[in-house]
């Protein structure tokens, strides 16, 4: 009996929606007058529970606003549940925003160090893997140029290269990123498949059913913050497709 790598138990997440942005000056007087601001509560996730076993890949599908990204941020531990528990064991590679924290005035080299450090590598690990990152990104002599000289594609390639070499246990993906030209995209797809073959867990949020059925054994279908279906990918996808077809006809 192995322990799950990701385990969510009765997770609820609600956001406070302020009618106006809260301002310190106003809230302070409101507090003195004991008249709190109008706040609506939006329940993004309600009573979500599931487990992901080591080596298992899970796809999350659902319509816009179903709570997919909220779920992803909870697993990524950037956000915390309002109630319930989220347990994650293992290092995480968030393939969410490529090059988060890149600074335009620093060179590609310096940005790789910074980005990899934030993703949890130590100095010696980065030094060991630096060449692999540079090779993967295929940006040649631009590695020493400041990032504001880069094209959008180059920046994204560098960001992807860092995460590809961070070697995380759990890879979080928000849509398979269409980065760069066809050749580089093929390389990215190969890397993601490679993660899977190496026994990593993929946690993929996508609207692209073929990506999910290709990469994941299990799928979770979210509908208005609740789990509407979970199980083998093909089963969940066909239920979901049937449901959305019903919506568009009706």
């Amino acid at each position, binding site marked *: 009996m192995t322990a799950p790598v990701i385990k969510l138990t009765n997770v609820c997440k609600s956001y406070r929606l302020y009618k106006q942005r809260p301002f310190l000056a106003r809230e302070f007087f409101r507090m003195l007058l004991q008249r709190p601001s109008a706040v609506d509560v939006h329940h993004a996730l309600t009573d979500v529970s599931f487990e992901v076993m080591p080596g298992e890949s899970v796809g999350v599908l659902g319509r816009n606003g179903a709570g997919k990204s909220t779920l992803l941020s909870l697993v990524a531990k950037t956000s915390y549940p309002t109630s319930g528990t989220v347990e994650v064991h293992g290092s995480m590679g968030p393939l969410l925003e490529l090059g988060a924290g890149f600074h335009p005035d620093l060179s590609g080299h310096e940005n790789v160090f910074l980005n990899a450090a934030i993703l*949890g590598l130590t100095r010696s690990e980065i030094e060991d893997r630096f060449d692999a990152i540079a090779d993967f990104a295929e940006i040649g002599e631009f590695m020493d140029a400041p990032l504001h000289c880069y094209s959008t594609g180059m920046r994204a390639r560098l960001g992807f290269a860092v995460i590809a070499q961070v070697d995380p246990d759990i890879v979080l993906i928000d849509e398979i990123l269409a980065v760069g030209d066809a050749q580089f995209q093929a390389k990215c797809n190969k890397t993601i498949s490679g993660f899977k073959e190496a026994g990593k867990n993929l946690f993929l949020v996508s609207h692209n059913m073929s990506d999910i059925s290709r990469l994941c054994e299990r799928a979770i279908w979210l509908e208005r913050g609740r789990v509407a279906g979970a199980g083998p990918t093909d089963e969940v996808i066909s239920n979901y497709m049937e449901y959305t077809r019903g919506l568009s006809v009706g």
Partner: protein
Amino acid sequence: MQTFKDIYRYRFVLSALVAKELKAEYRSMALGFLWSLLNPLVMLAVLSFVLVWFFRGNWNAPSLVVVGLVPYNFFSYCLSGCSSSIIGNSTLVKHVSFPRQILPVAMILNHLVHFAIQSTLIVSVLAVFGPAEGASVLTPNLLWLVPVFTLHLGLCVGVGLLVAALNVVYRDTRYIIESSLQVLFWLSPVLYSARDAFSASQKAWVHYVYYGYYMNPLSGVLSSYRAILYYGTAPNLLILAMTLVSTLIVGAIGVRAFWVHERQFADLIQ
């Protein structure tokens, strides 16, 4: 305490962030590190000119001002830097999980480097214009700089964490800080010696103003710097004790506020 343990665990990230800030700042400026000296130098020249010319200050007014101005600058840069440290790194905060306190702490360390550079200004101005009349600075009293600097840094960290957290929740915090810093510039002994100001009157109510004045921890820190570096004496121990207490209070509020709001940062940044 966990707050500070996490900082130690992520010290490599911290050093990478500080290096990033410094490199980025100085690559975008033609004069490089000289820029760090130029701003206080100009301020110092203007303020000393006003003091000497319009207020009949002593000729060594630059010495009087520099020992207050440079520490005040450190505090004020830390505050404005920290207030935008979380929302300025919104993509990181939203997508990567790491202890958030390293962002304001990196900002403080970055300004600490500037403070170190600007300290050379204190030394050179004191060497040129000399300390207070009949005072000698090169005494064992200089050792007092260690506890005073510790208080100063602690104050910056405490208030820095507080404003970093507040500015995520309430976006007008930054503007409130800017105005408060203007007020603090005059309410703390930057341009004048509080010792002279309070010793001028013997009236009883002045005492209450005196204690009220030193409720502000920055006043105590700046007064102590001035006592050590300008008058060459040990700082007033009562003032130092009051500063210690108020710094601890402010620090506890800051750490607590950061800790309470930290988990919501990613939700609040949109």
